[in-house]
Each structure stands twice: as C-alpha cells, then as structure tokens.
C-alpha cells in the first residue's frame, strides 16, 4: 500500500447538487482532493459518480455548490475552462474521433503550432513520447483511431487526458476495457503521476484496484456522500456495506418457489465466428444463466450472434428444439428470442417516440396483424413494471434511465418470448429500478422463460444466477454454480484458473 505525502488540498467541491429533468442525482456532495493522492470514488451504478466528475470537468453545471481550486472559487462554463485550469478528465463514454489519428485525437483542440501552422511532427513526437511513458510504443501516433481495438482506444483516451498539463486528472472507469497487462501499465502510470504530485480522482467498480491504488476513498450512494476514509482504514467488506447500505445478500430476490427448471429452451452448440469460438451453452425454462467476463470477452458478441447481427459462422442455435439460424434480428424475434441491448439509448429505444410507440415496436415490427390486439396488454405490463411516466404519450427521452429500461423490457414482454437475453440490464439504473428488474427476471423465470443475463457487475452475476458461465477471449472459460464467490469468477475470467 502506497503511502502518499498528504500535503495541500488542491480541490474542494462543496454541496454539489445536480438534477436531470427534474430528478436530483446529486444531493449536495462534498469532495476534497490533495496533491499527490489517488482518490477513489465508489458507488453503485447510477450513484452519481460520473455526474460528479462531469461537474468537475465543466460538462455539467451544478445547480448548487462550489468548486475551489487552490482555495480560489472557480466556475467552469465549458470543458475548455476546466482543462485550462488544470483539470482533465477521461470520460466513461468514448470521446474520440474514429477517423482521426491517435495524435490528432490526443491534441484535439490544442494542436501545437509553429509559426501559426499545426506542427504535426511535434504533435506526433509528443504523442509518441506520451505513449512511451505508458510503455505503449506499439501504438503509432499516426494510426487512425478506428483501426485500434477498444482497449487501444481506451488507452488513447487516457493519453489524451494526460497530455493536458493537468494537476488534477479524473478517470471514470479507465480500466473497464483494459486487459490485465494493460491494467498494470495504467497502475504504473497512475503511481508515477502521484509521485509527480498530481491529484487523481479514480472511479472504478473493481475493489481490488481501489485497494491496490488509492489513498483515500469516497463513497457515494444514491447521489449522496456516504463517507470519505483513508483506504488503509477500511476493509473491503466495510466498503461494500457503505456502498450498498445493507448486506448484499438481501439485495437479490429469492428464486420464486413455483419455478420449475424444465426443457432446454435455448441451445448453442459449437458456436463461433471471428470473435467467438466453441460456444456451447444451454438455458432451460425457469433457469437464469448469467454470462460473466471482462469487458471485451465476447459476451455481447454472443447476444449479437443470437440476433443475427454478428452471425455465428460455425455451430448451431436451437430454440425450443427447433434449429434457427437468424440472419437478422427479425428472424431471431420470430424464433422467440428477445434481447435487451446493453446500450439502451443507441440500440434499445426510439427516443423521440412515445412510451406506447416504443412498447409496441416489437409487435408492430414482427406481428403487425396481431399488434393492436396484443398491444392491449401493454398498459398492464407497464403498470406491473411500475413505470413512472406522464402517460403513454410521453416521449421516452424524458424518462429516467430506469424507466427507460422498463419500457425496453415492456416491449419484449409484449411479444411473449421464449428466451430473453439481457445485456447489462441494470447499467445506469438506480437501486430501486434494479431490484424491480431482478424481481421481474425471477417472475419471468417462474413462468418458464429461459433467461440469459450478461453483466459486468459481479454481485449481480452471482446474485441472480442459477448457473454462471464465464467467458474469456471469446471462449467459454468455465462454468460456476450459483453462489460462487466473486474471487472465483474473477479468477476464471482473467485466466488465473480454469474451472
């Protein structure tokens, strides 16, 4: 455990409040950063970590509260101002231009100039130097970002943030897309920066990282500050309790008593394509199988293969014993599959359309003739999901994330699928909504629907699973029973053991 020279406070945020569309997501949060410390920010999904970072980055404006830099109060009207003040940010979402080179992305907005013209050589050289700092000589500054892998792109983002002469760097889940060696690189880098006296605000869901790296940790829950403590003074268990507010076990609903595990409803045998290989997977009626794995391990790829987006070039898919080879989402839906996509806004909802229109979309697309008849049950489904809205005419873009997710669920439930695949179904939704989703999964399962859930949240993976299938590098690395512990899952996922 590194002991940092705890010196002067460089940043003090006080009483930060922020609402979106009338829903408060930060309730007066305080945060203090010191030079030369790594300050971890923890909290569940939707706790408000990213929002707090964006307030600091000048992306969002707080409705109340102050930000002090070196004791002087500042307001950032624009991200540029934050950057100029020495605060730079690696955002959770990708913020790169795919068509531009690495160097151009890194120096976007402040390209070095010589005699008025952009000095491309210097830009490339500087980028190369930054990359060398990270030990990433293999990435050429002149590569187009779109030709990089997701991990490569993530690295570019970090390099970009580092390239500002920042005194404060905040990183929102920087390791999310990184492989193990890359994470080590990043650690090294963060430690170097700390030694240079920078203040680092570090968001991660990985407990191990927090304890490896951070000096202090601040915990947020539901947009409110729970506590800020030196990392050395807290155990992982205590930290989790602070985050969740209660023992984790009670968070996931029990399997309903009348659930019967029945016939195999979904079977993938020997599935493979460019990214996947040897995928053998079965989900039975009344069973919830969770797919675990690091980001990029190929979980979403499986969902997409089932949906004909990225087809299996090898192997077979059976739904209720019938061979299907979906060449489009439409065929998959007709075969009885449903997919709650991982990216709600880009893939799940037509944001400018009403709640009703979205909820009817699957029916309209696949069963146009029965659509009006079947749509009659939609209000019932929506109210059983306890949707909070101003009515069926409200456009979904005005709903909160959790409620948007409920609309997505409703559109699938209306089509009565045999198998539901949920890809990160609780991403970005609040605790209450999460539990709603979990309960619903249990209910569906009890009705005999086969459920395949993909999640990056280990607690969820473990808490909801009847079986856990772990993926690594596009292959099934192992299968664990319900109740396996996080450590075990991570070990399989990272390849430290094969079970």
């Amino acid at each position, binding site marked *: 455990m590194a002991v940092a020279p705890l010196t002067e406070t460089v940043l003090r945020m006080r009483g930060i409040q922020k609402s979106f569309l009338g829903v408060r997501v930060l309730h007066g949060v305080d945060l203090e950063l010191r030079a030369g410390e790594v300050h971890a920010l923890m909290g569940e999904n939707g706790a408000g970590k990213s929002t707090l970072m*964006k307030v600091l980055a*000048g*992306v*969002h*404006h707080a409705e109340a509260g102050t930000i002090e830099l070196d004791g002087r109060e500042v307001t950032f*009207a*624009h*991200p*540029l101002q934050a*950057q100029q003040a020495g605060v730079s940010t690696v*955002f959770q*979402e*990708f*913020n*790169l*231009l*795919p*068509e*531009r080179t690495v160097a*151009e992305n890194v120096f*976007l*907005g*402040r*390209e070095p*100039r010589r005699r*008025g*013209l*952009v000095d*491309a050589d210097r830009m490339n050289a500087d980028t190369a130097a930054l990359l060398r700092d990270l030990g*990433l000589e*293999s*990435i050429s500054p002149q590569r187009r970002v*779109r*030709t*990089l*892998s*997701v*991990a*490569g*792109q993530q*690295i570019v983002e970090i390099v970009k943030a580092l390239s500002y002469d920042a005194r404060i760097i905040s990183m929102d889940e920087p390791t999310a897309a990184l*492989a193990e*060696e*890359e994470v080590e690189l990043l650690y090294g880098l963060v430690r170097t920066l700390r030694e240079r006296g920078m203040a680092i605000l570090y968001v991660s869901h990985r407990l191990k990282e927090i304890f490896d790296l951070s000096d202090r940790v601040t915990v947020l829950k539901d947009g409110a500050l729970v506590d800020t403590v030196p990392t050395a003074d807290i155990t992982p268990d205590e930290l989790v309790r602070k985050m969740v507010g209660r023992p984790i076990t009670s968070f996931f609903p029990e399997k309903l008593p009348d659930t019967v595990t029945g016939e195999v409803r979904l079977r993938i045998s020997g599935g493979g*394509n*460019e*990214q996947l290989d040897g995928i053998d997977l079965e989900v039975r009626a009344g069973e919830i199988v969770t797919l675990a794995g690091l980001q990029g391990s190929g979980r*979403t*790829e499986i969902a*997409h293969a089932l949906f004909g*987006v*990225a087809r299996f070039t090898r192997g077979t898919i059976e739904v209720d014993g019938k061979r299907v080879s979906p060449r489009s989402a439409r065929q998959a839906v007709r075969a009885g599959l449903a997919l709650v996509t991982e*990216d709600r*806004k*880009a893939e799940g909802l037509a*944001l*400018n359309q009403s709640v009703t229109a979205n909820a009817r979309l699957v029916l309209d697309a696949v069963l146009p003739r029965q659509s009006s008849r079947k749509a009659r049950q939609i209000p019932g489904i929506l109210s059983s999901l306890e949707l909070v809205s101003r009515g069926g005419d409200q456009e979904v*873009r005005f709903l909160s994330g959790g409620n948007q997710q409920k609309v997505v669920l409703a559109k699938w439930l209306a089509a009565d699928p045999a198998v539901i695949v949920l890809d990160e179904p609780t991403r970005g939704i609040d605790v209450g909504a999460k539990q709603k989703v979990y309960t619903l999964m249990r209910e569906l399962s009890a009705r005999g629907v086969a459920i395949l859930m993909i999640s990056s949240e280990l607690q969820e993976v473990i808490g909801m699973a009847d079986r856990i299938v772990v993926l690594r*590098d596009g292959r099934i690395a192992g299968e664990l029973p319900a109740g396996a512990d996080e450590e075990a899952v991570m070990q399989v996922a990272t390849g430290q053991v094969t079970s």
Partner: protein
Amino acid sequence: MTTVDRRGLGGRLGSTELVYLALLGVLVIGAVLVAVDGGNLFGTANLVDMLTRSSLLGFVALGQTFVILCGSLDLSVGYVMALCSLVGATTMAGDPAKVPLGIAAVLVVAAGIGLLNGLIVSVLKVNPFIATLGMGLIIKGYLDTNYKGPAGAVPSSFQQFGYSRIGFLPVSTAVMLIAVVLGILYLRRTRTGFHMFAVGGSQDVARLSGIRTGRVLVTAHVLCSVAAGVAGLLIAARFGTGSALVYGSGYDLDSIAAVVLGGTLLMGGRGGIAGTLAGVLILAVLDTVFNILQVDPFFKDVLRGVVIIAAVAIYARRQIDRRASRPRFGPDGNGGPPGPPRDPAPDEPVPAGRGADR
C-alpha cells in the same frame, strides 16, 4: 498486449487513393474509347479542355468540401457565384485599375454570405439544407430584381484569368490547383482545419475537447462562399461580364456530387480536398470524353447519374466490408443514429436529427 491492431488487409488502401484509382480507371477507359473513335484523349486540345472544365467546378467543390467535412452543406453556391460574377464585373466596369477593387468587393460579399449561412446554421440551428436553400432563394430574388441580364464589364487584363494558359495548363486551372493545395494545407496544417474534421466527426467530442464548434462551422461556410465567389470571378473573366443566369447551371448539386465522389463522407468527419479534386477531374474527364464521342446530351445526364451512384456505392461497399461485425462508432452508412452512448453537450438535450439530414 492483446489486440491493438485490427486493421484488415482491405483497409490498407486509403479512400483518397481509391478515388485516384477511379480517376485513373476513368482516364484509361476514356482514352481507349476515344482512341477507338480515332482520337487522342491526351492531345493538347483535349487535355486543355479537361483542365478548363475542371477549374470552375473545382473552386466550388473545394469550398463545398469544407462545409461537408463539418457535416453541413451549402446549396447556395450557385447563387453566390452568379452574384459575385456581377459584383466583380460591375465593380471593375471595364477599368483595369479597378480589378483589385472588384476582387476585394467579391471577397467581401462572398464572405458576408458565408458568414450569414454559418450563423444561421450554427446559432439559429436551422438545418443547413434549408438554411442554404433559403439563402439561395434570397439571393435569387435580389439578382432577378436588380440584374435583368448580364451586367458590368471585365477588363481584358482580368479576362486572362479565364483564357490564358501556360502550355496546356489554363491559368484558371493553375489558380484552382494552387487553391486546392492551399486548401489541403489549411485542413492539414491549421487548427481550424483540424477542427473541421472534429466538428463533422462529432460535435460533442469536439465541444468536449474545447473546440468552439460554432466558429469552425462559420469559418467553413465563409470559406465555401469565398470559393464560390472566386468561381464567380472566374465566370466574369470568362464571360467578360457578370451573369445572373449562372445559378441555373446546377453547380450546387454538381459540387456536392464531386465532393462525395471524392470520397468525403456526406455526414462529415472524413475526407479531404485531394479527393474532391479527383472527383472534379472524374466529372471533367467524363464530360470531355462524352463530348469527343458526341454522346447525346441527354444520355450524358443518364451516364452521369449512374456513374455518381455507382461510385458512391462502391465506396460504401468498401466501408461495410472493412467494418468489423460490431461497429464501435456506429454505422457510417446512411441515416444511422450516432454510435454508442455519447454525452450530451453541457446541459443541452441530445441534438436530435443530426445525421442523414443533409
């Protein structure tokens, strides 16, 4: 380190190279056809013809490239050309001493229109298609009301711009090529040039990187109008006078076609002026070849339409192939929504309808 590189073989050939390959193809096929017809496509006369034809569209398409790169569009260029030819010719009024004044007047007028276009698009948030269509109508009304035909006179010294040539290279084409080189340098060597790609690629990414997207957009529109203004000057030099009727010659849609033919993405963010030049040359070569082969003028339109669609379809095809099964950055075909989760700009609702709207 797992997979930093996922560049396939197909990706090695840049899109600009592909466009030049297409140009080469058109040249070869054209030369063969002309040779069969008993001519020589590369004879001085034909060469001069091709180059001359490319100069006027070259200026307009050059300007259009800037706005399209920014994800915008300019349908008013034809009207700007017409207006500028008149402003130039009437200001010069046949007096060689007034040539600089005429040029200055044209540049000011053109820049002013570009400024207005840019402001309407970036500040008033009017879709560029409608904004520039409206601007075109506004100018058209002014022209129709105030110029009942050709007006003004260009001194013969300035007519050299339209007629003289160095060897087989017409001066106007030479100037156009210089402008193209300057344009390429501008895009590759200035900050604003860099930022145009960013604004066209993603307004949000650009804004988060501290780029003042509005200014960039306005700059692009000003450059576009100025380029159209220079084309207007060239018109004046070639006509010896200014002519309002130029706006009916379809330079607006032609220039967009040339830019897209040159491999620039209509939605912005990728492409460049080198490609546009090739696009312009392809159209000029086609015109010359059709002319030599005495192709029926209406059949010319049919062929042009087919060539434009086919070329763009080939580019699109390539992009699909090259794209991995799951795009990290959303589809770059037509009308797709912006890719993965993007963060809305500071406290603004997600900008809707950016995309296929041009």
